[in-house]
């Protein structure tokens, strides 16, 4: 059922979509599907004649202790980091919404951490948290306190990795959410001011309902990027101490390239795809509910 509102013919539309399809199919969709098949075989660079092995790879992966740790860690990362990033993004956007002198400059400063690549971010915080030349250690020394890098602690390594992730991603969340906050009709703010609504009431009854579709989209992007956490921890902790900060992406990479266990790597990676499918279904459900409301 096609209702034309633009004078575009069907054949023209196909030509327009074709380049994207030719790029995305072999380099994105096909590997996503192929991962499922590879995970059910013993395929690998050293195994030219793969055989079907059923769920054996999954059983093998589930048995390794680091695998459970990686999913425990990523679950904590996603549930802590993403809401924090969204909250900081909304909060900063709320503070920036009225024009003032220096706002343009602040918006640039507020995007700066996102420019630091995940790999550079890990390396930078490795030094910033060090005892000798670090930033936190400097302030601790003022108060005569001892400071040891939290990255060496089994308890504190994961919260620290999350904090560096929030430092880098919250600015991007703010950048994406800010235009949505600006689009809120001024009458709503005036009404809230006249009513004497508190900040929290304004956020609850004006910002959130108005921002919801955008907020869900940004949340999906952030969940996806956090789920794939790899370069962020590669230098920062290397997944350690022990398996305190190992993530599914890092686990998959190490299995494939460090331990030469290609099927285990592919299988662990395909579980990331499977969880993305679940997350996507939840996202679609939430946006449809939102659209119907």
């Amino acid at each position: 059922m096609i209702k034309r509102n633009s004078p575009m013919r069907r054949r023209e539309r196909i030509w327009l979509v074709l380049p994207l399809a030719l790029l995305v199919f072999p380099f994105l969709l096909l590997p996503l599907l192929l991962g499922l098949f590879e995970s059910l075989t013993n395929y690998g660079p050293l195994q030219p004649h793969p055989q079907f092995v059923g769920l054996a790879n999954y059983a093998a992966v589930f048995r390794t202790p680091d695998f459970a740790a990686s999913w425990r860690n990523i679950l904590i990362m996603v549930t802590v980091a993403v809401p924090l990033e969204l909250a900081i993004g909304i909060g900063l956007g709320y503070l920036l919404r009225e024009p003032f002198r220096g706002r343009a400059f602040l918006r640039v400063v507020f995007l700066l951490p996102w420019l630091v690549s995940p790999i550079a971010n890990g390396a930078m915080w490795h030094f910033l948290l060090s005892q000798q030349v670090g930033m936190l250690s400097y302030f601790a020394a003022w108060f005569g306190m001892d400071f040891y890098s939290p990255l060496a602690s089994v308890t504190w390594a994961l919260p620290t990795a999350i904090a560096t992730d929030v430092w880098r991603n919250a600015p991007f969340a703010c950048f994406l959410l800010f235009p949505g906050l600006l689009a809120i009709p001024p009458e709503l703010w005036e009404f809230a001011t006249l009513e004497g609504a508190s900040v929290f009431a304004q956020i609850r009854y004006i910002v959130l309902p108005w921002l919801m579709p955008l907020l869900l989209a940004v949340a999906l992007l952030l969940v996806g990027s956090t789920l794939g956490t790899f370069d962020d921890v590669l230098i920062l902790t290397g997944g350690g101490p022990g398996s305190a900060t190992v993530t599914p992406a890092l686990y998959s990479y190490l299995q494939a390239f460090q331990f030469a266990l290609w099927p285990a790597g592919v299988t662990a990676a395909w579980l990331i795809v499977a969880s993305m499918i679940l997350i996507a279904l939840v996202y679609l459900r939430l946006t449809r509910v939102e659209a119907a409301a």
Partner: protein
Amino acid sequence: MSWRAQRARGKWLRAFLLVLAGVIFLAPVLWTLAASLGVMPDNSHAPPSWFASPSLEHYAEIGALTPTFAQALETGTWVAAAATGLTIVVAYLAAYALAGARFRRRWFVVQGFLILASVPVMAYALPLLSIVRTARLYDTFVGVVAANSAGFAPLAAYILYGYLAQVPPELEQAARLEGATLWQILWRVVVPLTVSGVAATAVIVFVLNWNLLLVPMILSETQIKTIPILMTDFFRLEREIDWQSAAAVLTVSLAPLLALLAVTHRLLDHFTLTAVQSIE
């Protein structure tokens, strides 16, 4: 408390919170910049002291520590530029086709772009390597650029759809009645109306490409060494590297993006994710 006093208090609170956020976002970068110039603290005694011998020698040392740094800057720029160009062109055309058509499943296609955009690279990187090897594109510029572009094209298509859906169809209809071809309509009518949005999207996609580690790391061995790859090798192999040299490497790797942000920040004010509102 009077209304006026409350307002004044709100203003001060806002200024305080904004400055605090600015300091938190800026301080780590400034700390690194200072160290790269030879200014760093000595925290071994209380109160800590500063160790300052300002010089540019650590920048000069980059060449000796990582001889391929200049090469990586060049490779990284070409990869990011080519992948950004390819991404924007294919995503723009597809988003235009989608914005021009009205069919019931369009909502799913647009949301599908966003879902694909949020899939992390490691989820499909290993099978991607199998495909790229089979296609004999392993360790080539074309292979890395194609894989980078495929990864970011859904995001670009989602963003660009938001701009294209706002172009009034009457303009295109009028041009078509005048006898203009599809390409003329695109180039003369639609592109000029969306050019600032396209440019802002291109800046974001360029930054994502510049910072992408996994695709060039897995799909190449020696040929395509971008800055993130170089930094990974550098920091993994030399853990005991001194902080000033590390800081100099970090600063130089960030500098091109800082320059880009300085030049394009007015453009980025036009950036919006309006696709969510344009779907009905």
